[in-house]
């Protein structure tokens, strides 16, 4: 990872805006680490515990359900588990990129690679968060089926099957209420901030390089980056 001091790059180009963008990138990087850790927590820990004739544990990545004495494997939950690979990949990538960018920004360094990685991983979160919401919807729908009524009427009369109860766990409450837009918005800010920072960094680097060339050629002008 190529990292350089910001004093020459960002500092030389639009100082106030750069500070704002740095603060924005820092904040979104921190948000990325926290929110994606929460997403991974949501994925790997149980969302609901079922009790009753259909009992077990339902998570997104994994589940264990025993229905009427026999283990069952509902295909929608398998699908959710399979599709969670997308979210896991994206979240892991974003945690790594966010942590790296956060570290570099705290240290007062800029890195083009880190900014690009953060921007790309922030963009992947658009897909990832949409997938996560879709997966959660599948899981909740399947849960409503599992905890639904199986009572019915036959020639023997009313066959009343006891209903199962779903107890939501901590992970079930995470990311359940906010709208998709509100979840995605920080990543949009992060992507834009990192993009603009990268652009400023490039401009600054070019300006520095240009200044060095001009000073080598004997011209005595102020830094072009100060424009």
């Amino acid at each position, binding site marked *: 990872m190529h990292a350089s001091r910001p004093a020459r790059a960002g500092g030389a180009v639009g100082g106030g805006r750069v500070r704002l963008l740095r603060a924005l990138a820092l904040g979104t990087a921190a948000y990325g680490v926290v929110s994606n850790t929460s997403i991974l927590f949501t994925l790997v820990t149980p969302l609901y515990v079922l009790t009753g004739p259909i009992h077990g544990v339902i998570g997104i990545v994994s589940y264990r359900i025993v229905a009427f004495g026999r283990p069952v*494997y509902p295909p*929608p939950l398998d699908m959710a588990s399979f599709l969670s690979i997308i979210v896991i990949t*994206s979240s892991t990538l974003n945690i790594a990129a966010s942590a790296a960018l956060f570290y570099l920004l705290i240290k007062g360094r800029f890195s083009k690679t880190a900014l690009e*990685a953060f921007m790309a991983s922030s963009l992947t979160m658009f897909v990832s968060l949409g997938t996560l919401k879709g997966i959660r919807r599948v899981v909740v729908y399947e849960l409503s089926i599992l905890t639904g009524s199986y009572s019915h009427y036959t020639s023997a009369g009313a066959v009343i099957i006891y209903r199962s109860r779903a107890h939501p766990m901590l992970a079930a409450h995470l990311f359940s209420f906010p709208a998709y837009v509100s979840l995605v918005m920080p990543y949009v800010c992060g992507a834009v901030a990192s993009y603009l920072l990268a652009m400023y960094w490039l401009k600054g680097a070019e300006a520095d390089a240009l200044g060095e060339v001009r000073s080598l050629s004997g011209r005595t002008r102020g830094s072009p980056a100060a424009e």
Partner: protein
Amino acid sequence: MISAAVLAFIILMFLGRIIGLPVAIIIVSGRSMQPTLWVGDLVVGVKEGFKVGDIVVWCLKPTFCVVHRVVEVRDGYIVTKGDNNPAPDPPVPRSLVEYRVVAVIPRYVWVPAVAAAFAAYVFKHREYFSRRRVATGDVAVLLLSSFIVFNAAVALLAPTYYPRGAGVLAVPQVELRSASLTGNGSILVKYVVRNTRLTSVAYCYLRLKGWGSVRCSARVVGGSEVLVTDVPQRLYEAMIENGSNPLLVGLVVNMLYGRVSGTYYVWCGWRPLRVRVSGGVVSIFNPNPAPLKVLIKIYTASKPGPANVSVEHVVMKPWGRMRLDLRRYAYASVRIVYRFRGREVVLQYGVRP
């Protein structure tokens, strides 16, 4: 060049299901076929005929397919079942079957093979990668494009979809097989029980027209039958005497995971007593599965003249027999009186030894 051709062929095989090629490779993404197929295994499907016992791929949409075993074929429909599922899938039209699975590539074979091939490719081109200068935007483009390709592969190649998850559940089923009187006057209610078993009787009552409800006791026999034991005798007597039919049996039966509550009609085909006189012996048979109150008057004499009369009130047990030996009397006759279907029946027999 060769590696590009192999890669193109593999991609074509993976897309075969979507574009309808005669041969396709599909990733198993569910646990319903364990232990035959595991999550991540690749199956090779070909478009050809199938029979019961084959594993087939049927698809509702090109991207939504199910890899299950055929358990029944009938009239244009097939029934499939995951080896690991307790219940079969709902029947689907035969036309939905796309492929018959002819080969399985376990995940522990193809995943290391692909990883090794990728590592070999990178190793072979290591000089190119080490010399290559990372230009602005390369990292972002590489990450985004890799993510898009990965997502597309996951979303398109995983053949997992099901309209409703409850299809795989073995929901307890209880149906009535019969409700009838037994030889000893009890009532036996037989059920057809699937995926559960009856455990105890929570409530039992009998109802007869003109009698209201009468509590009864009952117990579960063998997990699928209920025996109503203490039916009040006066109820049967009333039924036989008045010809009341049917008897209504109400049961609330506890079972694993729930209970069954139902009322069942028990029709009683009451028949008159069968009496046979032969060689000075009178045989009386109660052909009913319920006790019957009978008044028996026996007239006996050793010589012509006044006769001795003995009166006996008898409750004939269900399918009970009675034998009157009158051979020692020179003259004898029997009068049998009982109420049957709302009227009094009188039978008179002269017995001549």
